[in-house]
């Protein structure tokens, strides 16, 4: 079986004065959850629309399973997607919504019942979708994405509007999909939503990839080798450590932040010089902090007009 992957190469797309995509490139591997994170307006939704053949890029290409999306005969059997859970005809029931989708892919009506059960919508499937809560709409969207039993799944901000129970369900669901060997691409503007879900991260800002890495290595990189030291004699400690080549910053009355030396070396130096200390700890960044660090530029130097482009992107 050929591995279904999503491969995006050098996407560039301009909406009027705004460069929405500026050389976006990454790949999504099967068997893992890839988090697609970045601040609002970073180009996540635009990238997903390009992958689905909805928007045409000015440059570059997006391939699904090695093929352009537009050349797929029944694309939902290859890649399932959910861009906007609110994209429903309010007066149509969930079941009929899934039914027309199934018809368009040459799928039987029984498959509709299966995904309704899978998404936990059995009791409400014949009700008007207009009466659904956002969480129920997300589930309905997931059901639609799963209709064709695709090897790749792509979800845009699936945690939006979900209650805590739904978020837990969604995480487990995504892990389960990856465990079955599917490629899963999930976008979010909040790293915390992906912290325990994603294996791989594609961090984007201003239309291009800032980091394309595993969660573990992103944490390691962000942590650097900062060491926190508590001592009653900060001046002496500073002298000793600076002599050893470290950079020392005073962060409190008895607290120092040391960079340039690992924690063991700090302990050895202080012990050797008989400088008393009460605590030495290696600083550990959270994923959120790492993400903030990475995307700071993208947020701070957001060009004028970006907000408008994002509003349109979300509103459509």
């Amino acid at each position, binding site marked *: 079986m050929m591995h279904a992957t999503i491969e995006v190469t050098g996407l560039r797309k301009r909406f009027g004065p705004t460069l929405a995509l500026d050389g976006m490139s990454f790949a999504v591997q099967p068997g893992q959850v890839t988090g697609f994170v970045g601040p609002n307006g970073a180009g996540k939704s635009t990238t997903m629309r390009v992958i689905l053949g909805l*928007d045409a890029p000015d440059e570059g290409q997006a391939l699904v399973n090695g093929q352009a999306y537009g050349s797929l005969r029944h694309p939902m*059997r290859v890649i399932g997607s959910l861009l906007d859970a609110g994209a429903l005809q309010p007066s149509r029931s969930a079941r009929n919504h899934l039914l027309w989708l199934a018809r368009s892919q040459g799928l039987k009506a029984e498959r509709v019942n299966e995904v309704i059960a899978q998404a936990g919508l059995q009791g409400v499937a014949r009700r008007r979708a207009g009466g659904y809560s956002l969480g129920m709409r997300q589930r309905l969207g997931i059901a639609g994405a799963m209709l064709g039993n695709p090897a790749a799944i792509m979800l845009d901000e699936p945690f939006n509007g979900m209650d805590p129970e739904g978020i837990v369900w969604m995480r487990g*669901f995504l892990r389960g999909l990856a465990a079955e060997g599917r490629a899963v691409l999930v976008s979010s503007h909040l790293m915390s939503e992906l912290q325990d879900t994603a294996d791989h991260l594609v961090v984007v800002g201003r239309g291009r990839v800032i980091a394309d890495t595993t969660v573990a290595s992103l944490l390691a990189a962000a942590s650097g080798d900062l060491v926190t030291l508590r001592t009653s004699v900060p001046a002496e400690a500073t002298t000793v450590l600076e002599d050893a080549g470290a950079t020392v910053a005073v962060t409190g009355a008895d607290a120092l932040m040391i960079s340039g030396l690992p924690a063991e070396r700090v302990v050895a130096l202080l012990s050797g010089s008989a400088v008393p200390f009460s605590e030495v700890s290696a600083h550990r960044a959270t994923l959120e902090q790492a993400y903030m660090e990475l995307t700071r530029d993208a947020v701070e130097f957001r060009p004028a007009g970006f907000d408008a482009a994002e509003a349109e992107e979300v509103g459509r």
Partner: protein
Amino acid sequence: MTTQTTAQPQPGATTGGSPRGTGFGGLLRAEWTKFRSVRGWVIGMILAALLMVFIGVFAAANSNIGCQINGGPPKSGKACVPPIPHGPGGEVVNDSFSFVHQPLTGNGSITARVTSLTGEHADLTGGPVQVGNGPGMVPGLGPWSKAGIIVKQSTKPGSAYAAMMVTGSNGVRMQYNYTQDAAGMPGKVSAAHPRLLRLTRSGDTITGLDSADGVHWTRVGTAQLTGLPATVQVGMFATSPGYVVTQNSFGGSSNQGGPSQATGVFDHVSLTPAAAGGTWTGTGIGGGGPVAGPGGGPSGRPFTRAGGTFTVTGSGDIAPVTPGPGSGYPTVTVEQSLAGAFLGLIAIVVVAAMFFTVEYRRGLIRTTLAATPRRGAVLAAKAVVIGAVAFVTGLVASALSVAVGVPKEENQGQVLLTVPALTEVRVIVGTAAVLALAAVFAVALGAVLRRSAAAITVAVVTVVLPFLLAGLNIVPSGVGTWLLRLTPTAGLAIQQSIPRYPQVTSVLSPVRGYYPLSPYAGFAVLCLWAAAALGLAFVLLRRRDA
């Protein structure tokens, strides 16, 4: 809650069995599912059908005709309809004229010279004429006042004939079997410019000739009168259709009518072979004698003879009955029961436009195009589904309107202008096809404009409004005529069951059932509009980001 992935088949494996319904069939089923699962659209289509039937059955010419004949008991409805002649082609005809005739057996010919055609008609300058009040008549010829020679199967109204005649302002004509008309010499007849006319019978074939001098003859036309008996009636005739003044005004048109008569003067009348002892008899066929009363014909007799000169005076017409005034009957056509089509059109274009535009409003278009990247196929599937739904709706409503409406009109005393069965089928099926094409046009507009209000407005303004503007004389008739030629409304011409006969003066209005284009030409105009809108939608849908 846990993930329920145990029932999950292997990812990427083909699900749902064989890929049946692949391609366009699956798309059609998808779009049909979309349509039927929105209750408002289904109700909209039912509403369209109900409006059509309601207007067709209850709103068109809803008057009961009453009468009291010769002091008898008052009657109403069908009992008031006089016997109506039908021509050899089955159509309802006028067949009333003054006939000076004698029998002719076997092959032969009749020749006569016409030296004068004069006429009188009711004076309508002083307002409407009361029938039986002895209208004041003023001199004047209608364009189709006529006098000439005729070979007729019998004196029974509606029987087959062929005639050569001079007319008020259409020169010499050969006409036969009511619907057929061919032009001969142009110009008005007078003593200085007489016209010689000849009809020659050979079996079922009648040939008409004209001449200015009796030496040089020109063939005007040839008529095949199948089943003509050995003995026929030949002779001279004169008649003149009712004089009608139509006033077009804002919101409609009004007509004033009154009687008219024509007088033809004939000499050099010859019959070959000359009938031994043949005498000329004057008969008012179908009540077509001279108009009675002051200023009427010479003593009310159909003809006078002075030596070889015959003066024949008559009124009426030898022509098909057409809708509108001047026929002498309250008439109804098949398509009058389909007058509600314009209301049905409104409902249908609203639903059809929204069938596409709501997908844009809800962002559902992205789901649709992600499911089917072949955007042209999506457009085609939507057009086929909404077109088919509109067609079935229109067919049911049209058939029902005609089946219920026409007998109702006839029972009220209206004379149905019958048409061949195939024409009736064309009118009914054509109406359904017009609704279908209008739906296709509107759904394509929806794809182009992407907003419900804009698409619905454009569709209604182009499809329905021209019908109202032209039909109710809201715009000058010249403008109205061009609207009915150029806009999608032209397609409604498919409803016209009675052709426009040049030899009959008609009020040309869609309300009367007349369109400036022939049924299929008008239908083709609508087809072009639908095709153009589809083409534009196809290009834009593929080019634009969803």
